[in-house]
């Protein structure tokens, strides 16, 4: 995967996850999922800012003034970059899916009383899954969508 493909993939993944989050958490309370409409904004507030941030970076990269045309530095192999780009987001997706399924199943009508997952625990699980993106995808996004301003400033300073 080259740099351009990596950028496109990250933007597509961010858009997809944002859209899916909105659709799920807004529709879930009305179709019988054990979340109330008062509780869903809290979960949306955890997930969407991260991916909206990536989309924002990409938008600024496309339309902003670029100080340099240099490609971002890449020390490892392209295969490693692909793994680091796609892997955490896939892990995030699997983690959130597991938490959502566990929440729904443990809070179903037929579950043993008192064994349900709380909204706090669900929020914690989602936050935990996002933590992986903080140490990987955030760094990758900052390099993929770098406008070179920092490098240009450093060069001027030198």
């Amino acid at each position, binding site marked *: 995967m080259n740099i351009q493909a990596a950028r496109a993939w990250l933007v597509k993944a961010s858009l997809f996850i944002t859209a899916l989050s909105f659709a799920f958490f807004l529709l879930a309370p009305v179709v*019988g999922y*054990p*979340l*109330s409409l008062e*509780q869903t904004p809290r979960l949306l507030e955890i997930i969407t800012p991260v991916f909206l941030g990536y989309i924002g970076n990409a938008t600024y990269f496309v339309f902003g003034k670029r100080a340099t045309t240099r490609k971002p530095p890449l020390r490892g192999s392209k295969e490693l970059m692909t793994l680091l780009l796609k892997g955490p987001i896939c892990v995030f997706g699997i983690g959130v899916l597991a938490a959502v399924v566990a929440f729904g199943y*443990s*809070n*179903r*009508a*037929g*579950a043993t*009383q*008192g*064994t*349900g*997952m*709380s*909204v706090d625990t669900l929020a914690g699980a989602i936050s935990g899954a996002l933590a992986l993106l903080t140490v990987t995808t955030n760094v990758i996004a900052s390099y993929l969508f770098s406008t070179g301003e920092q490098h240009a400033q450093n060069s001027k300073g030198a």
Partner: protein
Amino acid sequence: MPRTAKAPEFLALLGAAIAAASPPASRFEVPGAITASNAARVYQEYLAASKQGKQVAKGEVGLRDKCDFGQDAGFECILSDEGVIYLPPYPIALPHNLPVLPRGGTVAVRRWAPQDEVRDGAAKFARWKELALSGLPFDCDGPRCHVIVEALVPEQETSEISYAACEVTSMATRWAAPAACEQIAILHGSHVWLNAIIGARAARLSMGRPNLLLHLRGIAPKFDLPTSSSFALALKGNCGEALRLDFEVGADYLAGYSLGRPSVILQEGREQLDIYMHLRSLPGSPGGLGLTTKFNLVVNPQNTDRNQDWHLPSRQQEAEYEKRIRDCVSNAVHRVCKEVIRLDAAEVTCVR
């Protein structure tokens, strides 16, 4: 002795241990609770605006008298035709411990007052705070006890802690949700506000909160009415089915409860429902049969056991329960009466 014969005893001990180890909810929403700033404002308004308050503020010596408050004597007060006005330091008592007030047959008037304007205010507050921290029920009368909880008050500051006195009922191995809570104290930083007794006035009909009142009257010439027991059985059948509850039937009451089950009335979530129906003979000639129904309800959108996840229902949710209860009571009346003539919301004539 076979092991199985010891199992019920062991389970009873285990249940008692669980009940002891699992006190009732310690933080609870209390309807009508106020913040410290509102308590202060109410007290200042009372001193400035009301006739009684002005008398208190001016300390009208000429009108002062000595009044009792239960077994405590020596409270300064002003006696009038309207009732009694206590002067600071005010008496104070928990709602269920109110003694007989002066001028017999009067009801207590409460106002928020600073702790130092309440007799033994500091000691009483310290005791209530200790009870709230322990969370253990006290002053029990059979299965019904009392508990002091930390009241969750909307818009209260982070430095505020409110306390409320509630009724709580022991049910098998657990405690029902606190009910009939009344806010009794507010701690705001180093200031304490207490809901003191500032006076007493003539009793008048209290609307209270039985959720449903129903009077059955007979029709001439015989004024024949169903018996209390037959009506109770009809209620047990109809309301038991409508609410999916197994009612306990006593001499003059029906009681049913559910603990954390999926709601049978709301479309989602779980409920803790405590419903009590009291049957009595109505005075007058000809008499009648009266039914008072009260219910306490807390709901939880999820299947968790944490106290903070259980909260009071919304108005719509409460209205749905009330409608279901009204309908089942109405059906029970139709079961014991051949014909029912409704006179108003609470009065029906039963034709047998």
